[in-house]
């Protein structure tokens, strides 16, 4: 699970294939040096990362632990709103918060009992004056200089985003207009309700998981469940839009907007005429009035997804070169009626570690990691839908992957 410490930094001795973005070399999924750069320059660098929903910390004094790459942070709330702090004591670096969720008047590091308020300001240093006049902190020690590091925060429609960077543009500029529009469609400010979490550890490099969501091509082929119920079909309208130079991706599918007579899907050899006893688990109630479903990625760690009536944010937490935690946050709206809540809970059977659809992906990616490990000099071919990075109105395309690697190579100088 940990980066192999004895391995040499392969990135220094290997080159990207001459063909450019239509090829992806397998070594990028197993190189520990490259992985460290990705954590530092992407997750902890100039990016915005999803850390939770503000309804997860509804009251003053509530907190939640979260991860940005391999760095722990805490989401807190006080009278001034939501804050995101490093979960790292300013004294010796200990984890201040050990619980995933909790409520406290002060955040106190267990190691030496330094105390911090919900903004991370240092409010107490044990034995600061020493004992019986001996020891203690120097007289000029200033607690104000020793708070928990605060991250930049953006709260959009109930979702909380944080950045370690002082230089990254504001969240809205970072996302760009299309991604913001799609995000606001799901989170317009209507109060959200947390339905629950689900987590899985997929034994693959985070980029294999990241690519999978950008790849609408596999959706109609690997995922028999989708095809069977017409939830996602190759003959439906599908917009595939790389955004902000390939950094983000916005995919929109309209399952009812179909061309032809359906004979195309019937030709797929794995199509089965298969009926469910409880059709509520797949029946799409068009709650936004546009007949659309959305899957979008906000680089580097968030997938925001509306599959029929399941709403979820998937957070990618790389746990090693070959290990990716996917943390699913399922939500609805506070004013959902009992029927809509029941439908969301039922339809969630499609996603997550036991999802009729997602299960195919986690199973496949585990196998794929072994292949890239075993054949590091091999390369993937990305020519479906052409060789460029322009948005396309089809799912028979790999433009999202090409655009991502265009961005990736520029950012890392590969």
């Amino acid at each position, binding site marked *: 699970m940990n980066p192999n410490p004895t391995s040499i930094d392969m990135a220094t001795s290997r080159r990207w294939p001459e063909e450019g973005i239509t090829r992806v070399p397998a070594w990028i999924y197993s190189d520990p040096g490259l992985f460290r750069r990705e954590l530092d320059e992407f997750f902890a660098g100039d990016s915005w990362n999803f850390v939770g929903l503000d309804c997860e910390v509804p009251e003053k004094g509530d907190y939640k632990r979260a991860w940005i790459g391999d760095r722990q942070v805490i989401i807190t709330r006080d009278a001034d709103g939501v804050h995101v702090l490093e979960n790292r004591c300013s004294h010796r670096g200990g984890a201040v918060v050990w619980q995933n969720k909790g409520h406290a008047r002060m955040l106190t590091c267990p190691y030496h009992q330094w105390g911090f308020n919900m903004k991370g300001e240092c409010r107490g240093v044990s034995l600061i004056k020493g004992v019986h006049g001996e020891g203690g902190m120097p007289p000029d020690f200033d607690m104000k200089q020793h708070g928990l590091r605060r991250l930049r925060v953006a709260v959009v429609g109930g979702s909380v985003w944080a950045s370690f960077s002082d230089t990254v543009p504001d969240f809205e500029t970072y996302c760009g207009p299309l991604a913001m529009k799609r995000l606001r469609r799901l989170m317009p400010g209507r109060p959200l309700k947390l339905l*629950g979490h689900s987590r899985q*550890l997929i034994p693959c490099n985070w980029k294999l998981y990241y690519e999978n969501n950008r790849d609408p091509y596999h959706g109609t082929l690997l995922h*028999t*469940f989708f095809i069977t119920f017409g939830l996602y079909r190759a003959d439906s309208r599908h917009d595939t839009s790389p955004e902000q130079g390939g950094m983000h991706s916005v995919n929109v599918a309209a399952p009812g907007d179909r061309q032809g007579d359906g004979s195309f899907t019937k030709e797929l050899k794995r199509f089965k005429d298969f009926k469910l006893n*409880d059709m509520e688990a797949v029946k799409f109630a068009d709650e936004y009035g546009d007949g659309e479903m959305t899957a979008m990625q906000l680089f580097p760690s968030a997938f925001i997804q509306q599959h029929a009536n399941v709403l979820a944010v998937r957070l990618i937490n790389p746990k090693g070169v070959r290990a990716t935690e996917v943390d699913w946050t399922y939500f609805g709206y506070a004013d959902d009626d009992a029927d809509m809540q029941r439908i969301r*809970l039922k339809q969630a059977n499609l996603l997550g570690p036991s999802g009729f659809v997602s299960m195919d992906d986690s199973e496949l990616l585990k196998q794929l990691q072994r292949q890239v490990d075993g054949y590091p000099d091999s390369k993937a071919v990305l020519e479906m839908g052409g060789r460029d990075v322009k948005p396309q109105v089809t799912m028979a395309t790999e433009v999202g992957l090409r655009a991502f690697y265009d961005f990736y190579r520029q950012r890392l100088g590969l």
Partner: protein
Amino acid sequence: MAKRPEIHQNWPANFSPTHPSSPMSVSSPTAAISASELQVLRQFLEDYADTLDAQDLEHWPDYFTEDALYQVISRENHEAGLLHATMHCDGLGMIRDRAQATRECTVYEPRYLRHFLHGLRVRSRSAQGLETRCNFLVIESTSDEEPRVLLVGQYLDTVVHTEQGMRFKKRLCVYDNYRIYNSLVFPV
């Protein structure tokens, strides 16, 4: 030290050796149950585990009533009162659907599964049936890796007597895992 009786019917109903405010950490009170009924219950639970060890999805729905609730849910969600479950079947129709979709519609690596049951407690008896709890441990062996703990937790069940024998009216598989290793393909 006195040996604990096999069946705890003589313990007071409010028996609780630890702090009562954390329900998951206290020993459960037990209801009166005859040795023969307990034997039938144990056999029922073992049969269910055997059916899943055999990956016999065709017969898995036979253990449930028509209106059964079946969930595989994290302890984190369950204890916070959150409703989302990793597997959620509201009624026998959805239980049959999960069985069929797993067989027909999903792609997964071959694996062996072994269910280990321990610590059965009959917590109460009501008009609904028997409220029972039992620890489970599921070990998974995939086609080319060492066995690993796939899931560990507790079944929280409501078991009823029917003309066909015992059935689950409710089976919550509450798992302690913070996260699931890769996929949870089969029901628990």
